[in-house]
Every structure is written in structure tokens, then in C-alpha cells.
């Protein structure tokens, strides 16, 4: 029943995608009135098919319908409701289903968003690309990644249950959907990039649209990555949050290229430059999501969280090849004709800084990609010999790039467009730079050694101060200009708020979030300490300045697991309970760490071994400073992204021009009408006379 329903849904979505593609192609080749419009209906049909399939899968999981192989492998009678639901993305076939439904949501949202422009060739081509991608993913579910296959033989009375690590923390409900909302979301910008290359229209209007979809996807990808790091910290018991695992890298690479695009697209919107480059970045972002999907699902790279090997690999690799060939082929065909006239006037300008930023992000991506596939390349060249690329490689190459990006983050917001002078820079950067120096001196006095942490903290303070300065100036500017025209205090506060929201300031809040993450990462990795404490009941021990007292033990039983907890009092304060749980069907145990988290430092406790009877327990203790900054930084990035989606202050024609340089609007670019807010100079209106 569930199987039939599910197959029906997948088939409906696949058929709708294929028919939609054909109808659009025909209408594009032989134009007739309303032809392109008629193809819109297939998007909601794809979504409907996806919803039917998801409903069938959820119903099967929640009712423990073990006639489906997928359910028998990823669910058991004792699995709680929450982890039955998350079972849908606990294994390969179900994760493709999640991919499919999200793709269905995006294609429907896109068609709805452009419903009034459905006759536009560019929209039609973009929709066509979306349909092809949908056809591919739902096609996978008809073939090698079928989530609805029946068990062969008798229906089992119980199932294996999800991987025990996936039923230990509710974050698993959020992390994969967020990640997929991000990864899948990059399909829309890709579709528009292909469409603008095919139609030869690279006007900034479409870049504005693409930017907004990219920002949306990027925000969710950021949330997904941060939640993944948080999950790994909460669940895996080694006190870490990032391991340069291929699966992590697979989500990081599109994020990096997407970040580069979000910056360089501003150069295009503002100055009309870097058009082909931006299209390349969008195509690269999507290609990397497909490559990442291949790497994590084909079994060519073993990873601690790769899915089990399957025959889906060659199909994904083939799709990656097609995506890349189409994207790069189109650029080869059209690229030289679409190039923007003119160039960057001075390297010491906002666009120059964005260009440097882009080069660093692309280099970063290349480093991660090389580290991820290098073992494969090495093995192919030296037949059979194996090599592993570990954290030292990544750290050595990524730290300098990261420091370079922090430096750009500090300097770029103060740079005006077109060109700058030493006087302007001195004026705008003196205070932030001084703050950076103060932080470095403070750190040295405080006993922090090591060139990399000092640089990270100093540049971090510099960048945060630079972003803070931009925020303060624009709020103050908006407030003052409101007061200047005689507005009441309430109206001026509203104006100040309007000055605060909007794209540029959202970006600055994101920058501050990134600084938090950079500082947290540096502190936790450079100054973390890990060790063990062997304690008998009632004993206490000290590690890295923290006292841990072993107060007692407790056994907690739930229908799905038996959990053995240790009660540990940290520094004479609250009691924390690391645990080891055993789940129903297996004897496999999973540890649950307990974390005493504070703004300055985390104490992370795990049970390493329980004696047979009596005797002393061994506890793992990890003390890392500033771990919480990572999560705060992640939250700030989300807040900043939301801010930059809120329309900011609209500049009335009577308002004073924001800054002297703002008046030099490039003649080639009309101010895009769609842009939510004209971008303000970092020196807000407040500095205008």
C-alpha cells in the first residue's frame, strides 16, 4: 500500500518533469501564443508527486511498515516517533527523496515567483533546466535509489532501526533538511545562469533575482553546516566540530563558491563588471553540489558518514559531467560576447577588494577539493598505492587563506567604489585597526603565544570593528537625516531601524558572525586540552583547571534504549550526566557527552570506560575555550542574512546623497529597480554635510 502510493508519487513527479521539459522545448523551438505559459502547470505536479511520495514514506516509517526494505533497514518497532520521521533522511534512498521534494518546492516557488513573466524566454529556459534536474533526481528514485522496494520474501516482524548515532539527538530533525534546502536551492541560480547564457541576456535584473535565490539557499546551507558541526559536537563524543571529512567538505565547497558569488555579484550590479565570472561561479556552485553528492553517495571515498555503497554513483558522475559540460560549453560559446566593457579602475577600491576576496574563496575551494579528491588521484597515478590527506594539510593551507579573508573583511567595507586614496583609508580604518592592535597587545600580555592565534584575534577584532563602524554610521546617518527634516523621535527611531536593515548592513552583521566563528575556531583548536580522569565514586580530580567530582551513577530506561549515566559535578557547581546508551536490537552502545558550556569555555565530558563491577570509571575530558562563539557566530550569520533580505531605507529623491562617491553612479548601470535597497556607502548619510 505505502509502496504503491510512493511509487505512484515518484512516477507522477518524474512524468511531470519529463513532459514539462518536452512541452517547454517544443514551445521554445516553435513559438506560439501561450505555449510557454502552458508548461507552468508541471511544476506543481512535480511537487504533488514529491508530496505523495513523502507522505507514503512517512506513513510507512511511522506505522513501522516493514514490507518496505528501506523501513526494515532504518526503523524498528521501538523507534520513537521523532526518529521514525527522521528515518527518511537516515539512508541513501530516503535522502534522495528529501532532495526530490525540496527540488519540487523550489521549482514550484520559482514558477510562482515568475508567473507573470512566464512568456519570457529567459524564464522558460530557466524552468526547463529545473525540470531536467527534477527529472534526473526523480529518475534516480525509479532506478537505483528506489526508496519503495519491497522486501524479498516474508515481511520481517521488526526492523534494524536507524543507525544508533542518528537516534541520540533531535538536531538530526533539522540538520539534513536545512543542508538540503541550501544545496538544492543552488539549482535555481544555476538554471538562471544557463538561461541567461542561452538567451544571451546578462542584464543586471536577472542577477538581482539570482542573487536573492542564492542568498536564500546560502543562508540555509550556512544553518545546515553550523547545525552539522553542532550535532557532531553534541553527539560524537570527541569534542570536535569539524574533521575535514569528505562529507563535510562536500557541503563546504558550494558554500565557499556561493559566498564568493554573493560578493562579486555586487560588483556586477553596481558596476556592470565580472558578468562571465559571476555566471561561472553560479555554475561552479551547482556543479560542486552534484560532485559532492556523488562523492558522498557513490562509495568512491570512504568517509565516516558516507552512505552505503550503491549503484547510484555512475549516474551522479554522469550528471555532474553533463552539468559541467553544459555550463562550461555555454560559457565557451557565449562568454566572449557577454563580457562587460571596461574594467576595474584601481585595485584599492571596493571592486578590487571583492576581486581579491573572490580569488581567495576560489583558492580555498580548490584547496578543499584537492584535499578531498587527492587520495583518488594519487591512487590512480600510482596504481594501488594509498595516501591519506589529513587535517595538517587543510590547516596549513586554509589558515593563511582564512587570515587573508579576515584582513579583506576588515578593509573592504571601508573602501569606496572605483578608487580610494590613502587619506580616506586612514580616516576610515584608523579606529578599527587600532582596536585590532589593542587586542593583539592584550592577548600577548594575557600570555597568548603563537603567530596564528594572535593574527586571527587581531584581524578578527579589526574586521569586527570595521563592520561595527559601518553599522553605527548607517544607523546614525539615517537617524540624523530624519531629525534633520524635523521628524519626531519616534519617526527618527524608525528611520534608524530602516538604516539598520537592508543588504549592506545585513552583510556587516554576517561579517561579525564570521569573526565570532573564526575566533571561536582558533581558540578552541589552538588552546583546547583533552585528557582522561580515572575516578571512583565520590572521588574528584582536576583537569585543565576544572575540578570534576564523581557524585554517583544512574540507569535510565526508555522503550528504545537503556542508558547508563554518570553524575559529575563540575567546579562544585551543577551536575552533568554523560551517558552510554544501548539500543534495543544490537549490543552496540553509543555515548552521549555532557557539556558544561559557557561563554568563555566548554568542559566536555564523556564516559570512556565503565568497570565490570566496582572499580574506577574512566572519563574523557575536553576543555576548549570559546566554543560557544561558534554557535553565536552561526546565529549572527542567520540574523544578518535575514536583515539583508528585509528592504532597507528607501532613499527619497530629496534625501541628501549618501556620500560624495555615491554620486559617481556608473553610467552603464541603471540603478536596478528590483534591488531591495540602493546600497549605501559604509560612511552613511551621516557624513554628508
Amino acid at each position: 500500500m505505502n509502496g504503491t502510493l510512493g511509487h505512484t508519487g515518484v512516477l507522477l513527479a518524474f512524468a511531470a518533469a519529463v513532459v514539462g521539459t518536452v512541452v517547454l522545448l517544443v514551445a521554445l523551438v516553435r513559438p506560439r501564443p501561450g505555449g510557454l505559459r502552458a508548461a507552468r502547470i508541471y511544476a506543481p505536479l512535480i511537487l504533488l508527486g514529491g508530496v505523495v511520495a513523502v507522505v507514503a514514506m512517512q506513513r510507512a516509517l511511522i506505522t513501522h511498515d516493514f514490507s518496505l526494505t528501506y523501513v526494515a533497514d532504518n526503523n524498528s518497532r521501538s523507534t520513537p516517533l521523532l526518529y521514525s520521521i527522521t528515518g527518511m533522511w537516515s539512508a541513501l534512498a530516503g535522502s534522495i527523496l528529501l532532495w526530490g521534494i525540496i527540488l519540487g518546492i523550489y521549482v514550484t516557488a520559482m514558477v510562482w515567483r515568475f508567473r507573470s513573466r512566464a512568456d519570457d524566454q529567459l524564464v522558460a529556459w530557466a524552468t526547463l533546466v529545473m525540470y531536467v534536474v527534477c527529472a534526473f533526481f526523480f529518475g534516480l528514485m525509479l532506478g537505483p535509489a528506489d526508496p519503495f522496494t519491497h522486501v524479498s520474501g516474508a515481511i520481517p516482524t521488526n526492523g534494524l532501526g536507524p543507525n544508533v548515532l542518528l537516534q541520540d539527538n533531535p538536531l538530526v530533525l533539522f540538520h539534513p533538511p536545512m543542508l538540503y534546502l541550501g544545496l538544492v536551492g543552488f539549482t535555481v541560480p544555476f538554471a538562471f545562469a544557463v538561461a541567461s547564457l542561452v538567451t544571451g541576456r546578462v542584464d543586471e535584473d536577472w542577477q538581482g533575482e539570482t542573487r536573492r535565490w542564492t542568498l536564500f539557499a546560502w543562508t540555509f546551507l550556512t544553518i545546515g553546516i553550523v547545525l552539522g558541526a553542532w550535532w557532531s559536537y553534541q553527539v560524537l563524543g570527541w569534542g570536535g566540530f569539524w574533521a575535514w571529512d569528505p562529507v563535510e567538505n562536500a557541503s563546504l565547497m558550494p558554500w565557499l563558491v556561493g559566498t564568493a558569488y554573493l560578493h562579486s555579484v555586487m560588483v556586477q550590479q553596481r558596476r556592470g563588471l565580472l558578468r562571465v565570472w559571476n555566471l561561472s561561479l553560479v555554475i561552479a556552485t551547482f556543479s560542486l553540489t552534484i560532485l559532492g553528492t556523488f562523492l558522498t553517495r557513490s562509495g568512491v571515498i570512504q568517509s565516516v558518514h558516507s552512505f552505503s555503497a550503491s549503484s547510484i554513483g555512475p549516474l551522479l558522475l554522469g550528471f555532474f559531467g553533463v552539468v559541467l559540460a553544459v555550463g562550461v560549453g555555454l560559457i565557451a560559446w557565449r562568454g566572449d560576447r557577454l563580457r562587460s566593457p571596461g574594467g576595474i579602475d584601481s585595485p584599492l577600491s571596493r571592486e578590487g577588494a571583492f576581486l581579491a576576496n573572490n580569488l581567495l574563496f576560489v583558492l580555498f575551494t580548490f584547496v578543499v577539493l584537492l584535499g578531498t579528491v587527492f587520495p583518488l588521484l594519487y591512487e590512480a597515478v600510482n596504481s594501488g598505492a594509498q595516501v591519506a590527506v589529513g587535517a595538517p594539510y587543510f590547516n596549513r593551507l586554509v589558515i593563511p587563506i582564512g587570515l587573508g579573508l579576515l584582513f579583506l573583511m576588515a578593509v573592504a567595507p571601508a573602501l569606496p567604489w572605483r578608487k580610494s586614496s590613502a587619506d580616506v583609508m586612514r580616516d576610515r580604518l584608523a579606529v578599527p585597526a587600532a582596536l585590532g592592535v589593542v587586542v593583539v597587545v592584550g592577548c600577548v600580555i594575557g600570555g597568548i603565544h603563537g603567530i596564528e592565534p594572535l593574527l586571527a584575534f587581531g584581524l578578527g577584532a579589526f574586521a569586527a570593528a570595521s563592520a561595527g563602524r559601518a553599522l553605527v554610521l548607517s544607523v546614525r546617518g539615517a537617524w540624523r537625516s530624519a531629525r534633520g527634516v524635523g521628524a519626531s523621535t519616534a519617526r527618527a527611531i524608525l528611520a534608524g531601524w530602516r538604516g539598520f536593515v537592508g543588504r549592506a548592513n545585513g552583510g556587516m552583521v554576517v561579517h561579525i558572525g564570521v569573526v565570532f566563528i573564526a575566533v571561536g575556531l582558533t581558540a578552541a583548536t589552538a588552546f583546547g586540552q583533552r585528557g582522561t580522569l580515572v575516578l571512583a565514586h565520590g572521588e574528584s580530580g582536576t583537569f585543565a583547571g576544572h575540578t570534576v567530582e564523581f557524585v554517583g551513577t544512574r540507569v535510565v530506561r526508555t522503550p528504545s534504549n537503556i542508558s547508563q549515566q554518570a553524575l559529575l559535578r563540575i567546579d562544585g557547581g551543577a551536575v552533568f550526566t554523560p551517558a552510554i546508551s544501548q539500543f534495543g536490537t544490537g549490543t552496540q552502545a553509543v555515548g552521549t557527552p555532557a557539556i558544561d558550556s559557557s561563554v568563555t569555555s566548554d568542559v566536555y565530558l564523556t564516559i570512556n570506560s565503565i568497570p565490570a563491577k566496582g572499580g574506577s570509571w574512566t572519563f574523557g575530558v575536553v576543555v576548549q575555550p570559546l566554543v560557544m562563539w561558534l554557535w553565536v557566530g552561526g546565529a549572527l550569520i542567520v540574523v544578518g542574512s535575514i536583515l539583508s533580505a528585509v528592504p532597507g531605507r528607501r532613499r527619497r529623491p530629496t534625501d541628501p546623497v549618501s556620500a560624495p562617491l555615491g554620486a559617481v553612479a556608473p553610467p552603464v548601470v541603471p540603478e536596478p529597480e528590483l534591488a531591495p535597497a540602493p546600497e549605501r556607502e559604509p560612511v552613511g548619510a551621516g557624513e554628508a554635510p
Partner: protein
Amino acid sequence: MTGVLPPETTPVPPQAQSTRRRHTARWAAVAVLVVAAGLIAVLATRPPADVSEVQSPLVGQQAPPVRGLTVDGKAFALTRPPGTFVVLNFFASWCEPCQTEGPELVRFAFEHQQTGDARLVSVVFDDTTAAARSYQATLGATWPTLADPRGVIALGYGVRAPPSTFLIAPDGRVVAYIVAPVTASDLDGLIARAKATGA
């Protein structure tokens, strides 16, 4: 993929319109396609799960303790540091890939019995002690096999599925983590690499 970098050269100079640079995007695209085709060819020809060594935060760290009762009921504890290379293998009798690697482990153990530079320790993972005992007996395993009934050792090493194998250096550091069936020559290769890098 990141090879899309080359088109970057296009927008920089103000005189980019000159005929000399007209085909930058085309040549850059061709270069990217050639590189990508090479990458795809390599990826397409890799047999699945060929690279079995994975990154783990444990690699480079001191090995977590390995002690407990063996499947025969004897107490066992791995000395720290162990003094020789130790291959720590997590297995289950029901696990099909474990059956593939079983004979290879026996071969490895036999070869290194003579030289004495490496030894094997197995740990039962998600299996009953009785089943594991008879499995090891059938295989002809002479090395210690720990029962680990509560999965404590597996937990310390972050093992999620059998077979998982760790190579521990004589100084007690974990130097490799493999999550696929191993062969004797794989293990010899890893030991040679560890020796070369000064373990």
C-alpha cells in the same frame, strides 16, 4: 571544478576589448573542460570503496584504552604504549565484509609472528560473545579477541560499523583508521608508511 577560475582574467584590464583577448573565456572554458574530463575519468574508474582509509579525529592521538575480558573469559589489557604496531580490528560474525578480510588477518598475524613487529587484537562489535568465539575459532584466529559486551571499546574509538580497523604505532598513537575489509598487504603498506614518517 574550481578551474572556472581562468575566466577571471577577463574583466581586469580596461582595454579588455582588444582583439588579442577576445577568446579568453573560450580558452579558459576549454581548459576547464579538459581538467574536468580528467577528473571524471579518474572518478569513474575508481572501484567503489577502494580508498578505505578515512579521516578521524583520533588519528594522531593516543589510542584509547583496550582492555576487558576476551571471548574465552581471560582478562586482557593492551599495554600503553604497546611497544609494537597493533592492528585493532572490530568485527562481527554476521558481517559479510568481515568474512572477506578474515583470512587476510590470519595471514598478517602469521607473517608478523616471526618478525614480532606487529600484533593483532580483535574486538567483537554488535554480536554475541558465543557467535564471535566460534567464528574466530573457525577462522583460526590465535590472537586475543575481546568480547566488549557493552561496546565500551568501540565507543572509545568511535566505531560505527564492522569491519573497522585501527593501526596503533609502537608509541601508542593511532596512525590509521580503515572502514573496509583490509588485506595483509594494505596493513604492511600502512606500517611501512608509519615507519617512514617516524612513528
